[in-house]
């Protein structure tokens, strides 16, 4: 089951995390998410996420280059991403700590693979539009 936890990855968070590295257009976001986070977003899912994040003011469109329009994080988007990252960090620390207690010995020194979570706080911030589970 743990191998499949990456399926829970929340596309809005992945897109925000990708844009935290600078403005990107759709294809660049898709490639960045695939390369750095190992999640392949489809065009439909990506633009559903972009539309929702834009509607909630977490990202904004820059001037279009040809047909490709870059997007960048807004202050609200950066703030939401920071808050969620902090929360995830606390969850990860807690999980590591408890696993260390539950499984003493050499295995406990090897940190487990970080487990993605449903990130409810960011879901609330980005809107809980259906369809994001398809990524």
């Amino acid at each position: 089951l743990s191998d499949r936890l990456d399926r829970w990855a929340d596309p809005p968070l992945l897109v925000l995390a990708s844009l935290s590295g600078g403005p990107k257009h759709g294809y660049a976001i898709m490639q960045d998410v695939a390369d750095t986070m190992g999640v392949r977003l489809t065009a439909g899912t990506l633009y559903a996420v972009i539309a929702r994040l834009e509607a909630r003011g977490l990202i904004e469109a820059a001037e279009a280059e040809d047909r490709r329009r870059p997007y960048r994080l807004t202050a609200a988007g950066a703030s939401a991403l920071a808050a969620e990252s902090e929360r995830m960090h606390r969850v990860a620390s807690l999980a590591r700590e408890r696993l260390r207690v539950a499984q003493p010995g050499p295995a406990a020194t090897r940190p487990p693979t970080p487990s993605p979570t449903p990130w409810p706080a960011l879901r609330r911030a980005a809107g809980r539009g259906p369809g994001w589970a398809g990524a």
Partner: protein
Amino acid sequence: MSANDGGDRPAAASVVLGRLARVALALYPAAWRERYGDEVRALLDDSGADVRTVAGLAWQAALAWAWPPRHLYDRPARMRGSVATVLVAWTMLAGLGLVFDQLTQLQGARSPAHPLIAWSYWVFDAAAAVSVAGVVIGGLPLWLLMMRTAVRRRSWRDVMCLCSPLSATAAWVVAVRITVLLLHRADGVGQWWFLALVAAGFGAACWFAAGPVLALLRLRPGGPAVALAARAGGVAAVAMTLAGAASIVAAVAVTLWAPPYAGYHQGWPLGIYVPAVVLAGVVATVSAARGVRASRPGGAG
């Protein structure tokens, strides 16, 4: 088979999938396509398309209709679209209900054979009456508003369109009366003429609904009259769907418990009637729900 065939096949599949992806993109609402369509096409040019891409676009297009992003949400357009769709689906349901009525309650032979049949008739009559009242009361202000606008603009084509419910009904009733007068026998007009009149009735139903829908799309009315029509459309759609459900129960019950009655000894009419009622009912209620949601002050997308 040449060695080239193996290389051409993936390329041909890729071209087909690329086209299918663009077809799926065309399924999105117009406002969505206007805002993001070029970007998605550019992305598809860069990334190519596979089956997952096509399925994802088609699925997300359905979600974009059901839950449009807030910044692309056009309330008046959503209400007008809902009113138009509900009118078309409602007209089809009403036509199917008339066929049901003609083949059961209007046959004269009132031998329900089972209490469920009598109860279904009662529910059908009551729900259909509520639904017709909803259409008339909720639709009349919008009809008058559009008629006034059309007359002011001297758009006689729109005036004609707005009169189509009256003209279609009158034409069909006259056609039925003439047919009955000319062909009436002891056993009615006969099976084939009956089917011809039913087909003509559905043609008239299309005429009935098409006129106001075209006028709605051209005149693009707004304001409280559209909101009232959207809400009344919700009542009318739910009531007519309930009437359709009652008619299905009655028709199935008649088939089970009164087989020699009015041609119900054959199962094939049910095979057409039930899917048609279910389809029209689903379209009417889903679209009505969207319209009612848009009609609420600050209605969310």
